[in-house]
């Protein structure tokens, strides 16, 4: 799977309350949640972003609550993938379970500037900065941390529930 989109940068320790504030958790409808994606980090985010764009964040993205509404809101808003220096563990797990592509890459996060055009190859973990707003470099290539084999199996099966079904456990 390959994605190409504009990068939106966020700081360290973006918590799930900023990704989807609890005042909107009286529903689990992805369309409703998408309207408020990243609202308390950047109230204008959903108006500025376009479908296919990429979130690029510093360390510990998605810390705090276990709400799966966070990756659901991001995916339903049309974000194709999240690149961060590190992810909080429940957010990391939820993303694989529900199918939001995420990649850990320290160097790429440092290199990417807001507005850069970024291409991601999920299978190889290759992150290419196609057009940087600041530097004159034509393109820079980074490699994200390898995804553990078991989690690759989850993705290729289509998420945790599909994996459970495939194992004949339902």
């Amino acid at each position: 799977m390959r994605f190409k989109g504009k990068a939106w940068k966020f700081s360290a320790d973006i918590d799930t309350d900023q990704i989807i504030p609890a005042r909107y958790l009286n529903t689990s409808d992805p369309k409703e949640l998408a309207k408020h994606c990243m609202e308390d980090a950047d109230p204008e985010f959903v108006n500025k972003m376009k479908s296919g764009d990429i979130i690029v964040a510093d360390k510990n993205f998605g810390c705090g609550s276990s709400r799966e509404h966070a990756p659901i809101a991001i995916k339903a808003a049309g974000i194709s993938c999240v690149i961060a220096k590190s992810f909080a563990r429940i957010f990391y797990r939820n993303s694989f379970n529900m199918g939001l592509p995420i990649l850990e890459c320290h160097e790429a996060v440092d290199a990417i500037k807001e507005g850069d055009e970024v291409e991601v190859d999920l299978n190889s973990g290759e992150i290419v900065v196609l057009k940087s707003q600041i530097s004159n470099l034509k393109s820079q290539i980074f490699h994200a941390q390898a995804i553990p084999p078991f989690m690759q199996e989850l993705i290729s099966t289509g998420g945790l529930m599909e994996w459970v079904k495939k194992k004949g456990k339902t």
Partner: protein
Amino acid sequence: MPMTITEKILARHAGLKEVKPGQIINAKVDIALGNDITAPIAIKEFKASGAQKVFNKNKVVLVPDHFTPNKDIKSAEQCKILREFAREQKLSHYFDGGDVGVEHALLPEKGIVVTGDLVIGADSHTCTYGALGAFATGVGSTDLAAAMVTGEAWFKVPESMKFIFRGKFNKWVDGKDLILYLIGDIGVDGALYRAMEFCGPAIDRLSMDSRLSMCNMAIEAGAKSGIIAPDKTTKTYVDKRAERPYKFYASDKDAVYCDVREYDCATIEPQVAFPHLPENTKNITEVGNVPIDQVVIGSCTNGRMEDLRVAAKILKGKKVASFVRLIVIPATPLIYKQAMEQGLFEIYLKAGAIISPPTCGPCLGGHMGILAEGERALATTNRNFVGRMGHPKSEVYLANPAVAAATAVKGRIAHPDEVIKK
């Protein structure tokens, strides 16, 4: 091979002799928990998978505690999904109406979670049960759905960090201060993906309520779990409650830790975490003049009897400052009843406090005490993120119940000694 308590519990539930950090295992869960925010998604996925019955009607626990008593029509619909599922699946542990309490106070109190268990909960503060000597961790709704079907969950065995606490406690210091101090030391991702093990002579002396407060906030350091090896205090607590047989585990002497840290409690004052991260801690004596609009005493962190008692001790014969709202939330119906019978309600009411029914309510900015723009709260809860208790431009400070009660009386963040001599 020597193992930590966490590795032993995981190995046992995976049917393995031993496990190593980094290993992926599939393990049987003793309890799978969901609430009114997370369970509706899990129930939808459970049904979509074609499953008919949950793996065990005694082991799937549903507690609608976040937006209850129902906040609005949408949250009422969410709670209804849980109620109908509980009825249809004949769940033995479903709590509603006057039976509902804050989940992580309710499950230990009812003996639903016991020592040696492996518990997953679709709520990040599921790590609370580590205080009983159980492995407990927060997961998302899809993980809960899968566990409701199979009775199992996958885990990457975490590395363990050991935190040794020694020395005498300072006045007004409890488990909340130890964990805030620790998070201030290692940061909000200082234990990312890891198991935290709390031990040492000071932990041995800690009450169960304080242990629950400590393990509750392991997630605020990014940890997968927090645990305290079971001892006499654990046995006394669990014996009169356990609804299933329990099992004591202990770390081997030569078990491997990726980090070991020691703290001298004599140097730990009551702590206050400043906005907007739990790691922004300061000693109470270094806080300065911070006026407060609202004080909340409650939550899965600090809504238990020990917390309510110390707050009452400070509030007795005092008045909440003008233009300050104090909201006290006993975490479960039993705690509510005990607080009432022991005369604490009279103290709160005379002081001018609001007594709320058990709910997560304001802790997550749900309802029952939301902040307006520019307002500032001090709470005994666990998170002070941007907008956590209401308006994105409001602020939350975290502290223990004694500091919270003193703050309500003074109308600014205050040391309990300013209000009462212990």
